[in-house]
């Protein structure tokens, strides 16, 4: 039994790739003046890479959000679906959010690694990487969060194709990554970029590949502090925050290091809920609370970006 519209969609459940694609089509059909579905490329297995563009007018700066670059982190794709619906509900109803979308487009990639996501549903629930074979190795896939041209090949990524943090043969070798790179470059006016992962309850800004602080560290640090305070105001979920390298570990070739180096000042990565009980298998009844609290953190960052366009 398939939902006939996005009001009937079950946001408190995990969904297959086909169901998520159907959801996106329904959302676009229901909101033709607000939402468009862009195809920014194809995955290794030729699945389309879709971005939902929420726009209330032409020629706006963009604010990027992606979920699901690591396929087994199912709560992130599920949260992305919830964000998409939240955006169409709140636009025109919530004053603060309406002001944001009246000034910036939101670009939301719900399933950033569709091959991996499909694989988690059909073959291996614990799959994290892409699904491209590695010549000369029986091990498959690249960690798409080590494949960016930002300290690529440095410490904090593996050169071994059998490791979960395998960086790939070269920067942007993965079409899932290259498609975003090409889109971000061609757009040319993205002002905020948030990449969402699970699980650790962290909000981090660049860098991961070097201990050198980013020039905007004081502003990014203070904004992160405010974002996690807002996030915690709903259910009391405690987050830590800081630069990637000081908060968690050295990681080269990461997404937001590249976006920051491209001039996108408000670059952050979220690590969603860690209950200490389920890891990547967060029960579906926690999808909505997780998405709700994350949205508050996102709102803080989006508002600040809107108020401080550069």
């Amino acid at each position, binding site marked *: 039994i398939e939902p006939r519209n996005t009001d009937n969609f*079950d946001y408190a459940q*995990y*969904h297959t790739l086909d169901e998520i694609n159907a959801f996106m089509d329904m959302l676009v059909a229901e909101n033709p003046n607000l939402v468009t579905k862009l195809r920014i490329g194809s995955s290794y297995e030729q699945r389309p890479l879709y971005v939902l563009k929420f726009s209330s007018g032409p020629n706006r700066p963009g604010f990027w959000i992606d979920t699901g670059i690591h396929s087994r982190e199912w709560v992130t794709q599920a949260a992305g679906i919830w964000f998409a619906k939240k955006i169409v509900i709140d636009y025109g109803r919530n004053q603060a959010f309406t002001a944001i979308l009246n000034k910036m487009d939101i670009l939301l990639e719900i399933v950033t690694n569709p091959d991996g996501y499909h694989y988690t549903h*059909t073959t*291996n629930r*614990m799959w994290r990487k892409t699904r491209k074979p590695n010549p000369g190795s029986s091990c498959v896939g690249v960690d798409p969060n080590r494949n960016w041209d930002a300290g690529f090949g440095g410490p904090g990524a593996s050169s071994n194709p059998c490791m979960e943090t395998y960086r790939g043969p070269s920067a942007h070798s993965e079409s899932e990554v290259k498609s975003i790179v090409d889109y971000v470059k061609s757009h040319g006016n993205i002002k905020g970029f948030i990449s969402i992962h699970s699980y650790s309850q962290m909000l981090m800004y660049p860098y991961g590949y070097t201990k050198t602080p980013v020039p905007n560290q004081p502003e990014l640090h203070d904004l992160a502090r405010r974002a996690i305070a807002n996030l915690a105001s709903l259910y009391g979920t405690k987050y830590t925050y800081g630069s990637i390298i000081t908060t968690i570990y050295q990681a080269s070739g990461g997404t937001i290091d590249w976006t920051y180096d491209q001039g996108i000042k408000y670059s952050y990565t979220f690590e969603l809920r860690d209950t200490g009980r389920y*890891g990547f*298998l967060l029960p*579906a009844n926690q999808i909505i609370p997780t998405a709700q609290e994350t949205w508050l953190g996102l709102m803080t960052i989006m508002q600040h970006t809107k108020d401080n366009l550069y």
Partner: protein
Amino acid sequence: LKAFEGDKVLRILAKNEDQISLLQDLTEMDQLQLDIWKEPTHPTLPVDIHVPFESLQSVKAFLEANEIEHYIMINDLQALIDEERHEMQSTRF
């Protein structure tokens, strides 16, 4: 469909940098086929490791020999995956 029967996920709480270093050695033991969910980085952060059933004894022995605090976060990974799958299927109908 890959099965994870009897696999456990351990949450490991290192006390100091020495224990972190030992855990880093553990994660590099390829023969154990560990899936590191959270890497050992510093003592303030927990380390989560998915341990295949076949490696459980070795990992437990390593942790106990080095007096590294740990507990079972997920007792049977496959059971949790089955539960998740069952819930997805049942709500669909």
